[in-house]
């Protein structure tokens, strides 16, 4: 086992059969994470993030490709207690208090963190004596995070960790995660919030429809998918002229109005108003991640479905 190696996913492929159809959840993914790095797996629902994480953790067997965690098979890393994970689904077992549950999980690892320290870190201390079946959704989520942390893992994997949390809980969660990552730990988390990836990861791997569509520092990824659109009613508009305005990548007509896709909406709106002072009903909006992804991936995937059915 070489400790120098981080995580390597190579050519991962995974399909599921649901009745008649075959869903190709993951279609050939290559990702490498260096030790000590914090990486976000960013993508809309159905992008294949959870399936990728399941394969990374050895919970699902890939149809093709290989997974290496610290230079060995996922199960070897897990048996050695080097991996802590917070899965998206699953509830806690009942008839134990939050503290007892965290202590029980700590007892399974070779070098766990101090239970009380983890209870403090994750903000559980105040309800540590309450039974798990009496916790709210957000509180359970914190306990699940504590369970992942208490193992004192070298690799921490979090699948959509903040979904059930309120705003305050989210903030506290990320502060704790950052603190843990700063101890030289490797962290991989899945999210469909661009802001979370931008604020808390060094790097983002952008996934859509089972593929990696971009992989780079978060500020680059943000520029790529953080696009905005301007929608306005512009009498006498010429689409070609609008398309070549500064900051505009494309222009199209939708009924009465035109829609401009922008990389720099500030420059674009100034140029638009200079050219067409009569423009009205102006709306500027951030394109959703989903839409940004669709643009990045194009419409190529329809062919793949046919290929699968054959």
């Amino acid at each position, binding site marked *: 086992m070489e400790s120098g190696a981080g995580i390597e996913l190579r050519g991962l492929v995974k399909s599921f059969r649901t009745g008649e159809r075959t869903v190709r959840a993951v279609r050939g993914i290559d990702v490498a994470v260096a030790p000590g790095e914090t990486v976000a797996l960013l993508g809309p629902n159905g992008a294949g993030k959870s399936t990728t994480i399941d394969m990374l953790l050895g*919970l699902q*067997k890939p149809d093709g490709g290989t997974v290496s965690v610290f230079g060995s098979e996922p199960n070897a890393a*897990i048996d050695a*207690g080097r991996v802590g994970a917070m899965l998206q689904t699953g509830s806690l077992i009942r008839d134990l208090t939050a503290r007892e*549950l965290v*202590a*029980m999980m700590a*007892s399974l690892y070779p070098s766990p963190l101090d239970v009380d320290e983890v209870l403090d870190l994750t903000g559980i201390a105040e309800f540590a004596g309450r039974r798990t079946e009496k916790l709210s959704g957000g509180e359970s989520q914190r306990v699940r995070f504590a369970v992942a942390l208490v193992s004192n893992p070298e690799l921490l994997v979090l699948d959509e960790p903040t979904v059930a949390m309120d705003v305050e809980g989210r903030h506290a969660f990320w502060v704790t995660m950052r603190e843990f990552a700063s101890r030289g730990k490797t962290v991989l988390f899945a999210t469909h919030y661009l802001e979370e990836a931008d604020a808390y990861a060094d790097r983002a791997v952008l996934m859509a429809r089972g593929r990696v569509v971009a992989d780079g520092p978060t500020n680059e990824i943000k520029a790529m998918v953080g696009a905005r659109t301007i929608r306005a009613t512009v009498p006498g508009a010429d689409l070609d002229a609008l398309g070549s305005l500064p900051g505009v990548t494309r222009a199209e007509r939708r009924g009465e109005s035109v829609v401009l896709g922008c990389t720099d909406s500030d420059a674009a709106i100034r140029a638009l108003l200079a050219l067409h002072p009569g423009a009205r009903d102006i709306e500027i909006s951030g394109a959703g991640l989903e839409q940004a992804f669709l643009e990045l991936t194009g419409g190529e995937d329809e062919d793949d479905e046919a290929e699968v059915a054959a």
Partner: protein
Amino acid sequence: MIRTAYLRFELLRTFRNRRYVLLTFGFPLVLYFLIAAPNRHVQDLGKSGLSAPLYYMTGLAGFGTMSAMLSAGGRIATERSTGWNRQLRLTPLTVREYFRAKILTAYLTAFTSLLLLYLAGTVLGVRLPLHAWLTMTGLILVGLIPFGALAILFGHLLTPDSVGPAMGGAIAILAFLGGTWFPITGGGAMAHIARVLPSYWLVRASHVALGGGGWGTTGWLTVAAWTLALSVLAGRAYRRDTART
């Protein structure tokens, strides 16, 4: 050993669940007093050569311990359906250790149930020499092994919705044909079926009180065969269940 902590929490969870404890220990006791108390002066129940209080003590011990063992299956099924077993697969806890903790917990529950029935038996006048108590207890504990395997099989085959009816049905049939409610004697069809069931030998453990040698070859072979067959099936169900994901 680090795993004793895990086992301790598993036991804590089980014995803290008040509803579970009341039902598991209460049911056999209530049934025992209902059936055996009115017949407590019957000395040779159904030509078994045993007094009613003694016979029903082991009869209901068979029922109670069997239920206690099989309840481990319900717990496994629940942990599977809530996704907790996925969380456990991400820890260094091995499958063997997981099952060991579940079976040990089940055994401790079964043993408690057994002691309570012994106590109830003495209240109704059961008196046995020490070696008979010990031999009987030993045979019952061995006779429970196939039920541990059956619990794991159920846990991986069934969902929490179906595990209740499946176990209720299985326990009812096994207890009935095993002789929990009345002695099964003679050479009829039912007696033949009964002798190949593992529950029959649990109840049969009371026969050590007659001075007999307990089970005899047939008993040991039957229990061994069930243990082997159910373990193989449980192993297969476990592998199929985890390979599917």
